[in-house]
């Protein structure tokens, strides 16, 4: 495990009206780690990811990715630098089929922000399709290639979105509750997939309420409450920490 910081969030403040959703938050994500962020509802976890991908700009503070400041960049520029995100409510192309849903992010990898080039299109067509099919197979969605994405179950939508992110081969993958609303068996399958990706050394930030998932995947855990990180450590340390039990877990949940 390298000690180089991939993502560095420094003194980020984000307010909504009077509410401080992120309150001078500092966070470092190291290269190659799986970093879990846990915290009660409304703690600011999703807001933190929104700031990282440029969906929101912080009031003050900066986000650095790969040593460069990315605050203020447009979402597509940030994505092109290598950050992908799975959203808390699946964000997919409901009107398109599964294959198309995964081909589009694969194209982003090849075409960049904008291309209008028929020759390039022809040259890469098969390559793109192959890359998309491979990931779809990994996600066990291969038998539904031409089904409309909007008609799938919520669990499958999540898995599809994960496929869309993975096909981009991001340097940093942000996962906002990737197993929420999934049946037990689906959750286990997703954990297996995530473990497999873990083996590739991709850096991941995972927001998760399910402690089984957190403890079976994460290298480090940060606890977020009321917009600040109140504790950070290995899963073992967090499990035993008194502050955390009080603030979030209430002692009972583990």
């Amino acid at each position, binding site marked *: 495990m390298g000690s180089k910081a991939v993502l560095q969030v420094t003194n980020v403040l984000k307010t909504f009206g009077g509410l401080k959703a992120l309150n001078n938050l500092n966070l470092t994500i190291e290269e190659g780690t799986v970093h879990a962020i846990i915290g009660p509802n409304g703690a600011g976890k999703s807001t933190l990811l929104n700031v990282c*991908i440029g*969906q929101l700009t912080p009031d003050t503070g900066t986000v650095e990715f790969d040593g460069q400041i990315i605050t203020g960049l*447009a*979402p*597509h520029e940030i*994505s*092109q630098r290598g950050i*992908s*995100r799975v959203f808390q409510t699946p*964000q*997919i*192309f*409901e*009107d*398109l089929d599964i294959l*198309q849903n995964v*081909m*589009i*992010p694969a*194209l*982003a*990898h090849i*075409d*960049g*922000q*904008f*291309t*209008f080039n*028929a020759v390039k*299109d022809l040259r890469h*067509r098969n390559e*793109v399709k192959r890359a998309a099919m491979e990931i779809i197979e990994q996600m066990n969605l291969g038998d539904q290639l031409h089904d409309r994405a909007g008609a799938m179950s919520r669990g499958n939508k999540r898995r599809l979105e994960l496929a*869309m992110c993975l096909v*981009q081969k991001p340097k940093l993958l942000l996962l906002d509750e990737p197993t929420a609303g999934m049946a037990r068996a689906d959750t286990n399958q997703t954990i297996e997939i995530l473990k497999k990706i873990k083996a590739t050394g991709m850096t991941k930030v995972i927001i998760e309420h399910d402690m089984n998932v957190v403890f079976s995947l994460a290298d480090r855990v940060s606890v977020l409450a009321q917009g600040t990180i109140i504790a950070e450590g290995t899963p073992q340390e967090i499990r035993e920490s008194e502050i955390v039990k009080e603030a979030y877990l209430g002692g009972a949940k583990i």
Partner: protein
Amino acid sequence: MLRGFLKINMKKLLKNNLVIMIIFSVVVLTMPIWMQPFGAAYPDILQKFVIFGVFAIGYNILFGLTGYLSFGHAAFLGVGSYTAVWSFKLLTMNIIPAIILSVIMSGIFAVLMGYVALRRSGIYFSILTLAFAQMCYNLAYSVLTPITNGETGLQLAKSDPRVIDRLFSEAGEGLPSTTLFGIETSGYSGFYISAVVMIIVFYISLKIFNSSFGLKLKAIKSNQNRMRYLGFNTRPYLLTAFVISGMYAGLAGGLLAATDPLAGAERMQWTASGEVILMTILGGVGTLFGPLLGVIIIKYFENIFSAINQLDLHSFYSIFPTWLENAMVSISSLFVGEGWHMTLGLLFMLVVAFLPGGVLEGMQLTYKKLTTYVSKKRNKTGGESKKETGVNHGK
């Protein structure tokens, strides 16, 4: 077995671009024949079918693929027409330069309009395009009269320079007519020239629909934010689609001028934009053939239904007794002649309310129902005969 095999191959075949194009070309080029029973086999209306076909195909690239509803595309139609007529006046009566210039000119206008309007989406985008087109329309009537010749419309004149033509020959007696290297471009030849142009641009739109560019446009329609978070800058994509569809409109405008060399500002009015929207929705938004179907329906109503008068109706119903004939005529006359707008309006309301996918969807649904009905019937009889053989074996 063989039937199933054939069916699969037929389906595959119908998805093949070449096959689609061949069938499409044959259908379009034989229009003068199969339009005969409908009373629409004269050059004027046939030209309108294919020229507005170009307009609608282009409009569908924007509206059908991206979902951006422009109320300003008539402006490009008008710009195309004015440019073409100016080309006839200044350069040559040959339609090739005129058409190329009208495409370029409308493309420039589309870049300007798109650049501003695409800063917004949804209803605000529509309003911006509407404002831009109405501005063009009003300017054509006022400040720009030297270019547009105001209400009279821009026409050819004997005194026009036509510098390229003058290089080759002296000005003849009377007004020259538009040509394609000596072929007259009015009447039936005008139809065939426009039809070939439409077939070519239809092929281009087919390619766009099936390309990854088209896929990205569909994705923008489905979830634009997701596209951004996946790393696509959506605005240049939208602008490209907008400019392409604007150029299609300009091409249609150029063709209108090529078959009848005059241009008036009314071509730019919002009603003309509204018409192309109607055509696209009526036929089927986002489908390849729907908009063309819409064009035929609307242009048919506009030209044929509106020309039917009381006399025609009387002769149509003459087989009935007089009292019934009179009753039928007075009811039907509400819907024809001046009343054709009402028929169209009713049809449009019915389609939007019950067939959001347009007439094309309606036809597909009917076809599906018919085939499942037929195959069910066939299965029933097939199943029975099997049973019989089973019984026989038992014996």
